[in-house]
């Protein structure tokens, strides 16, 4: 039992490291690989928690996560955005990598600081996952704000989702129907946003969404 718990701590550490990697990678291919890695770590943590608490619901969640996040979502992205994914272009970002890493570290500390008062003895099972999930969420929102490329933004969105579920599996379990609905919905989000990205790429000739700045209150057009 104790071994499982400490193994989960290791998985948690790897999860947050993978989130860092996902957020600072400069090539779209490596962002996608980091996302799959992050999803696998989420699955691993879910399996460990399922074993730790003898929970069949969590085992079902792990299966759904494998199907949605590791298999279908990367598949959908590769199918709809093949060309954009293979483009060997640097992802532009408004803030450089060392500063970003420092800020992400700060956000991780902030997450622990926010969650610490909530973790009493009855909440021990959440001690690893809850702060790290919140950290992944904060880091993802930050990255979404500074990245200028559509595919990278989509993957940041999905990484935030992983953060939420990384915390979620440790603090609550829902029925299989609810979990399946959530997984299916994640797939639909990626499908629709990927098709929108492809349309934007066809119109703009690139997926640099930061160049979309026509709308606003400036001079009348």
């Amino acid at each position, binding site marked *: 039992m104790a071994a499982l718990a400490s193994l989960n701590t290791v998985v948690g550490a790897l999860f947050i490291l993978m989130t860092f990697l996902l957020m600072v990678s400069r090539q779209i291919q490596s962002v996608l690989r980091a996302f799959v890695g992050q999803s696998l770590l989420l699955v691993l943590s879910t399996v460990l928690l399922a074993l730790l608490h003898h929970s069949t619901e969590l085992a079902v969640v792990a299966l759904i996560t494998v199907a949605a996040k590791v298999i279908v979502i990367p598949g959908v992205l590769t199918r709809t955005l093949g060309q954009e994914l293979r483009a060997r272009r640097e992802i532009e970002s408004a803030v450089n990598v060392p500063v970003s890493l420092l800020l992400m570290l700060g956000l991780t500390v902030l997450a622990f600081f*926010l*969650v610490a*008062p*909530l973790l*009493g003895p*009855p*909440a021990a099972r*959440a001690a690893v996952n809850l702060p790290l*999930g*919140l950290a992944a*969420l904060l880091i993802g*929102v930050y990255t*979404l704000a500074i990245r200028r490329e*559509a595919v990278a*933004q989509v993957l940041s*969105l999905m990484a*935030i*989702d992983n*953060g*939420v579920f990384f*915390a*979620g599996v440790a*603090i*609550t*379990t*829902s029925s299989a129907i*609810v979990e399946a*609905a*959530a997984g299916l*919905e994640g797939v*639909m*989000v990626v499908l*629709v*946003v990927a*098709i*929108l990205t492809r*349309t*934007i790429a066809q*119109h*703009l000739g690139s997926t640099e*969404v930061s160049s*979309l*700045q*026509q*709308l606003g*209150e400036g*001079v*009348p*057009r």
Partner: protein
Amino acid sequence: MRLSAMLLGVIPAAPLVSAALCLVVKNVRVAKLSTLATALLAFAASLAVASDVTRHVGGVLLPGWIGVNALAALILVLQGFVGLTAAAYSWGYIPHLAPGDPARQRRYFLNLNLFQASLFVVPLLLQPVLTWVAIELTTVLSIFLVSFANTREALEAAWKYAVITIMGATVAAFGIFLLLWGLTRNHVTVQTWSALIRTAPHMPAGVVALAFVLILIGFGAKVGLVPMHTWLPDAHSQAPTPVCALLSGVEVSTVLYVILRLWPVFTAVPGLSPQSWALVVGLVSVGTAAFLLLQVHDYKRLFAFSTVEHMGMLLLCLGLGPLGALACVYQLTTHGLTKSLAFYGSGSVLLATGTRTIGDVRGLLRSAPVAAAALFVGALAIAGAPPFAVFLSELTIFRAAATAQDYLVLALLLVFLAIAFLGILRRTGGMIFGHPTHGPVRLPRSVAAAMLVGIVPVVVLGIYLPLPLYHLLGMAAATLR
């Protein structure tokens, strides 16, 4: 099982049937006809459900999964009504957006029906996690409606809409998980709204506080609260007009409904004081939107900013004591009915002139009198002039503020609303009067008919509040306490 409980299933199924028809039958006329027929059916069903809810019967189709309370029934009626007028408006409007392309028109009606179904599902679900999934679906299924024009601007609007609101919903999901954690810690296994409300006083205050902040930020982004509102004027102005009416009239309120439904959970925890948060965030939204209103050059954006203002006002009501709850649901109702009319008016101006720029349009009263009348009534009504519905509901808000002795809030609100009032009327007034800039135009009959239907409740509710609606509002307000 009672009839009204079965009707709960009919409401979202109706647009789905219509969507299936749009997909299978390759004929635009069939698509239009089925959309209108099912919209009428869904609206009638929502009225029947609401009427039964006010008489304390029915309301649950599948215990623990599907059911409505008074607030949810109110939202359903609003969705049903705006859905009906939007279906009628689309009939004559969409052929102008995709002339000579029946396949694209059919795709529009397919997407519209799917979006409408996702909206209907939100108030029907009894489990917060499922409601969250439904809210995400409303975003996913409306993205292609926002980008329908396929211009650079529409794609920009759709992109911002997708990224910001999906991010917001994901942040809110964290908050919902935290609330469910509060249930687990109290060994409650049922994850419904009522279980949350019952268990809330026993939850750790810190957990609920963090959940509250995450849900307010997350769903606040999709409701369009300042400072997460930046996407709203873009999406709510670039979409085709009937979609704007649905987005601005009911979609934002449908998301706010989730915050309202959770409100008793937040207020049950000592030391959290969500009322103060509501007052501050609400006032900031109203104030910011009022000043931004003065700067717009695009008349559809004008009404989009007015939505930000009204959403701020709805949140603010939650901080105004017992009468505030009634003011909130009352304003939510009048706003949905009136904002959709305002968008129908501006859409018909777009049909008549082909431009969105306020400065390029003058003299509508002579060139397109029907469009001018709809725009004028819509603008006056949404700005809060008597004798229209919003005037009465805003009076209720003022009364709630005075009763709660929040005189500073009342004064600031009056100043902001006066600014918004002048901003809206000055902008639209210039378009209506003066020498015509465009030639005379006849609007499609269905567009005029949709506006005529849309105007009825705006005028009627400005004169008096029918007793059944009064009961429904009272019961809906009671669910916020």
